[in-house]
């Protein structure tokens, strides 16, 4: 019997998250749930899991209307939602996590024997063989995910929803996950699969539903009825120029010269130049020192040596305030941790750190924030909105708006499009291109090769704390980039 969403509505103060969403999910199928960030997928999952209450609408499973007042009700009804941020307690053991809330006991004492034998049995359901006494915090993400799925199976969940399950898995781990999902389908369970990755969707999903702005756009009951482009169109609501949208532009003279820069995380002195209007990529594996280079240039970490020349002036040590003053702006890697002040509104976030006077100039700050919101098409009801309530892409645009305020000459972007959806991504790219056209030099750190190949004029590659190579746009390919980024055998 299918799972039916019937007219689900949910509003938050000031925001309508879901406006009457109805669709049907067949049993024994893997159903993709797609949409940009903020489309309402998370809200829908949370309603399914009992974390939120719909304002109106019905959930029907096995022909019965479900009354889900809390998460316990959802579990009892056979629904398990597995979130991106896994819901396991890292300090406890695998066994304790699996039986959290209903530890087997004898006369009040924990029954270890039953606990461990049951744990082994449950883990076998997903083909895992982990010692029950292992602390969950010591396991890789992939295994933790398997434990969550095992947990759902141990409660005989009929509906299992997975929220971006592959976002932190290696390709081998993804294969194992898919094998398990395949089994779930064969057992006649319902799998709701939330992902942005087209290849995955077309590999394992039987059907797909797209949400946009809290509305149901379309459901394809077999995935063959639609193409990847069709899905993207449905999600974005318009045609998106794909990542390969390079535009050539005039490139000026050198504006930033980095000489002999050395500091924490850097093994060999770093030196390179940026020209006006140039977009330069900085590629490398995680830990290669890319973020460190940006932080050293912006002065957020102290350099041990080296020199930075900007338009003829030399600086040996910068701090964030001084860097901003002379025209070097940094947008940090981890938006939530290092970029935004979530409980403050957009006006405060856009003006943070770039205020020059002692007294707040309320009207000017508001005007500045409104100008950035318009310029970058930040989607928000007003600049008084808490920035934490915006989607990732809109937060990113606002943060770029912060640093471009004053005579920006060099923009340092650290993974600006990580975790944001396709539409917002192309908007961020457009912003970067526009800034470059106005003469700003951009240094762009990204782990996504298509992104770098798409918009950069030149790409620097780092490996193990040093610059291992430089490729002009004409010579850059994914193979060349990887070749330079992979560690060399010790010589």
């Amino acid at each position: 019997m299918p799972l039916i969403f019937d007219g689900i509505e949910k509003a938050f103060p000031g925001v309508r998250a879901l406006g009457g969403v109805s669709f049907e999910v067949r049993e024994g199928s893997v159903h993709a749930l797609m949409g940009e960030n903020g489309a309402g997928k998370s809200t829908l999952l949370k309603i399914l899991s009992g974390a939120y209450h719909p304002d109106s609408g019905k959930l029907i499973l096995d022909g019965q209307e479900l009354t889900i007042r809390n998460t316990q009700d959802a579990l009892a009804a056979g629904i398990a939602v597995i979130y991106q941020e896994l819901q396991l307690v890292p300090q406890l053991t695998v066994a304790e996590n699996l039986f959290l809330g209903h530890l087997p006991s004898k006369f009040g004492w924990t029954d270890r024997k039953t606990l461990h034998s049951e744990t082994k049995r449950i883990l076998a359901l997903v083909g895992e063989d982990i010692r029950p006494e292992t602390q969950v915090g010591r396991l890789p993400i992939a295994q933790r995910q398997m434990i969550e799925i095992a947990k759902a199976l141990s409660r005989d969940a009929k509906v299992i929803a997975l929220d971006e399950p592959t976002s932190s898995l290696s390709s081998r781990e993804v294969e194992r996950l898919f094998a398990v999902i395949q089994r779930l389908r064969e057992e006649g369970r319902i799998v709701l699969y939330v992902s942005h990755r087209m290849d995955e969707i077309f590999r394992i999903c039987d059907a797909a539903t797209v949400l946009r702005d809290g509305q149901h756009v379309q459901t394809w009951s077999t995935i063959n009825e639609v193409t990847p482009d069709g899905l993207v169109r449905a999600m974005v609501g318009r045609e998106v120029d794909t990542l390969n949208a390079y535009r050539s532009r005039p490139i000026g003279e050198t504006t930033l010269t980095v000489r002999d820069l050395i500091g924490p995380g850097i093994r060999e002195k770093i030196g390179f130049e940026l020209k006006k209007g140039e977009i330069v990529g900085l590629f490398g594996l995680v830990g290669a020192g890319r973020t460190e280079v940006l932080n050293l240039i912006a002065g957020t970490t102290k350099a041990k040596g080296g020199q930075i020349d900007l338009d003829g002036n030399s600086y040996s040590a910068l701090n964030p305030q001084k860097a901003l003053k002379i025209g070097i702006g940094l947008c940090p890697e981890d938006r939530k941790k290092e970029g935004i002040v979530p409980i403050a509104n957009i006006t405060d976030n856009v003006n943070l750190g770039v205020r020059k006077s002692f007294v707040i100039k309320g009207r000017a700050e508001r005007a500045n924030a409104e100008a950035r919101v318009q310029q970058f098409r930040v989607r928000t009801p007003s600049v008084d909105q808490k920035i934490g309530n915006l989607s990732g892409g809109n937060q990113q645009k606002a943060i770029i708006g912060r640093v471009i305020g004053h005579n920006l000459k060099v923009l340092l972007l650290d993974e600006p499009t990580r975790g944001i959806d396709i539409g917002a991504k192309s908007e961020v790219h457009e912003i970067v291109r526009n800034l470059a056209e106005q003469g700003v030099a951009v240094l762009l750190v990204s782990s996504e090769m298509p992104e770098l190949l798409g918009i950069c004029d030149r790409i620097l590659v780092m490996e193990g704390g040093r610059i291992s190579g430089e490729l002009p746009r004409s010579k850059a390919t994914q193979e060349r980039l990887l070749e330079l980024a992979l560690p060399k055998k010790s010589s």
Partner: protein
Amino acid sequence: MSTPEKSPVIESPFRKVWDRAGILVVLVALLVGSAVLVPNFLSTNNLIYSLGLSVTTTGIVACGMLFALAAGDFDLSVGSVAAFAGMVAAVLLSKGFGPVPAVLLSLVAGLFIGAANGFIIAVCGINALITTLATMQIVRGLAYILNDGNSIGVGNMSFAALGTGTPLGVPMPLWTLLFCLVVFGLLLHRTVYGRNSLAIGGNKEAAHLAGVPTKKVQITIFALLSMLAALAGVVSTAQQQLGDPKGMTGLELRVISACVLGGVSLTGGIGSISHVIVGVLIMGTVQNVMDLKSVPTFYQYLISGAILLAAVLLDKLKQRGTSR
């Protein structure tokens, strides 16, 4: 994938009032209730001398604690600093110093203690609980050492006027409190310094990377807070005409309670001077009413504690409504 930002939904008027005012509603109800039910509550004498004077110490220090809380920290040493500064002023006066240098030197002593707190917290990275717990004891010790553990009387009348004078019919300590509320209110709401304090409490790492001089701001927050504690100590010494090394115990908890009661967030990022005013007034009114009704002291503790709990529970309820 956080809460999406979609077409707006109309909010109910009650919701709006509650969101905006919240605890203010409680204060108004409390004041109206007291005015109706408690005889003498509305008399000028009670309002100015009993209620007004009882809140000055807490109120003055709360102006500074507001900044510490806004920035995600707090300071347990304020009670000791107040006692110490009062002793410094009393001892200096007894040694023949004039009232102006005596007061200034006490304030500077407070400023230094606070700057030391701030330095240890911001630069050395020790957490505020441990740091100020330690300085709380150190400074209390210093207060005792100043006069061998004895209190010391103050004879200087122009100094005493700081506590007992009544320009325009209002006692000096109330003027001082009013002055602090205005100055620190403006500092928080109208200056970059104030915004930066809130940003540090909201996300310190982001504020630092965005170019806010976080360490400088943190150090000055603690310095100003301790200076206010010293000021409160001096005012109280002038009022009682006595420097007392045992005085002001528990002040830190009263101040933090008042701020939280008014709506300042303990986790940082949220706070306004109106929170302080409301919180201090609620605490003062409850205390005042209990005194007027001669509630026995033992029961007063129960009631004060219950009110604090009720206030934070109400706030939690409110947050559940607004965010997500």
